[in-house]
């Protein structure tokens, strides 16, 4: 009769974390930053149709890195959560913090109990209004939530991208400057990213109920030039 191997809980968690981190590191990075009129989301994404950034609700956007099918499922779950909450109560009651907690709970449970940990990192951003502040909630593969104050970087090369982004100072700037800094941080000194390689979206009040907009390649090009 064969005996099962004994694995210490520490080792078990470490292995799972390593597995998830490896998966995430394979993907490209994403920067989210608050600018003077809203929230900007910039991802390196050569695909024009498999999106990393998307709309969750009137003032909430989602961004994910890592395995596409896994964060796609989380994105859809978030839209369902938001639409059914808004339907049952009111549109005003759909809040990014509650959504981030919903994600954290799911990711946490999957990390410790699931068949395999999810190889994703996600970001829930909210454009502030009245009693709700502008927020960036970063949720890790194991379910940890971080409330980022000015910007967040997700993905494999996060630390390097982060250090490049902070070089430009601590101030909240306008859309153009923020976009340039984000693209510069993603590309680094040796590469040049064109609008074609990027997926860019923002949350900004432009007089509509829904504040999420994708920025077209042409518009991004005009801001970068």
């Amino acid at each position, binding site marked *: 009769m064969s005996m099962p191997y004994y694995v210490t809980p520490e080792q078990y968690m470490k292995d799972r974390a390593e597995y998830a981190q490896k998966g995430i590191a394979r993907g490209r990075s994403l920067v989210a930053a608050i600018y003077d009129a809203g929230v900007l989301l910039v991802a390196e994404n050569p695909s024009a149709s498999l*999106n990393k950034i*998307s*709309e969750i609700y009137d003032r909430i956007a989602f961004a994910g890195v890592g395995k596409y099918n896994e964060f796609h499922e989380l994105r*859809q*779950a978030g*839209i369902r959560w938001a*639409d*059914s909450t808004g*339907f049952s109560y009111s549109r005003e009651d759909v809040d990014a913090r509650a959504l981030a907690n919903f994600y954290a709970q*799911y990711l946490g449970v999957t990390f410790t109990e699931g068949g395999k940990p999810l190889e994703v990192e996600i970001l829930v951003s909210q454009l502030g209004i009245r009693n709700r502040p502008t927020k960036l909630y970063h949720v890790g593969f194991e379910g940890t939530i971080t409330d980022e104050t000015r910007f967040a970087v997700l993905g494999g090369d996060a630390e390097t991208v982060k250090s490049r982004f902070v070089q430009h100072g601590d101030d909240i700037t306008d859309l153009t400057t923020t976009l340039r800094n984000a693209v510069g941080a993603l590309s680094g000194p040796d590469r040049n990213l064109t609008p074609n390689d990027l997926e860019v979206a923002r949350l900004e009040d432009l007089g509509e109920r829904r504040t999420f907009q994708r920025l077209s390649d042409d518009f991004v090009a005009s801001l970068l030039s």
Partner: protein
Amino acid sequence: MFPAHSDPGPNFVALLQHLDIAPVVGGDTHLSPHATTVVALRSDTGVVLVADRQATSSYIANREVRKIAQADRHTAVAISGVAATGLELQKVLQLSFEHYEKMTDDVLSLEGKANYLSSFIGRINLQGPGIVLPLLAGFDLNHNRGRVFEYDGLGGCYEKSDFATIGSGSEFAEGALRLGYRDDMTIEECIELGALALYEAGDNDPATGGPDFVRNLFPIIVVVTADGFSEVSLERTREIFEAISARRAERQGRAGGQLR
């Protein structure tokens, strides 16, 4: 997170059923069904909808009801019938289109929207005959023209090439539309004819509210073109109805004369 075999997909009503949040479905109310007039006219560049604002039971229950709603950027949905169910229908429909758009990152086609509404009406009206009858009209971006859809009580969906009417004042409105409608009408001409049809309905049908100059309340006029959904301003609407009213006053209220 749903298992693949029971995933509701981008369908919002299916999601609500999964979550056991039931949309309000009609029952008996004292409001007499279909006490309303809504007309929708089609033109190549878009559609025009005009609706009265009165909710009627044995008395006038409300003079400010909005029976046309924006379902999404290029679609309008109007209701007749039981008010609570109708308003809920508009809300669910609007959420459904938005939900689909966010889930799939793609906009539902106008025909897709019309068919989705079909099954919804069928289900609601199983609870009682003809609880709600809607009108769906919008600008079809895929085919670059305005389109109008009407429904029967079982959810049958019929596309109209010219115009559609719903509510108790339909007969009167339809008379005016039949005589006045032409294929090559502009949006502006559709607005004027639609307003005239509504005026006729308000004049003859006790359950349809006409222009109310005392309270400054007028039927709602909505236009949907390639540029999206927009409502004609109160000032412009007032002018349109004042003109019709002035023409009638000249003839001491006798019908006939100019159609537009």
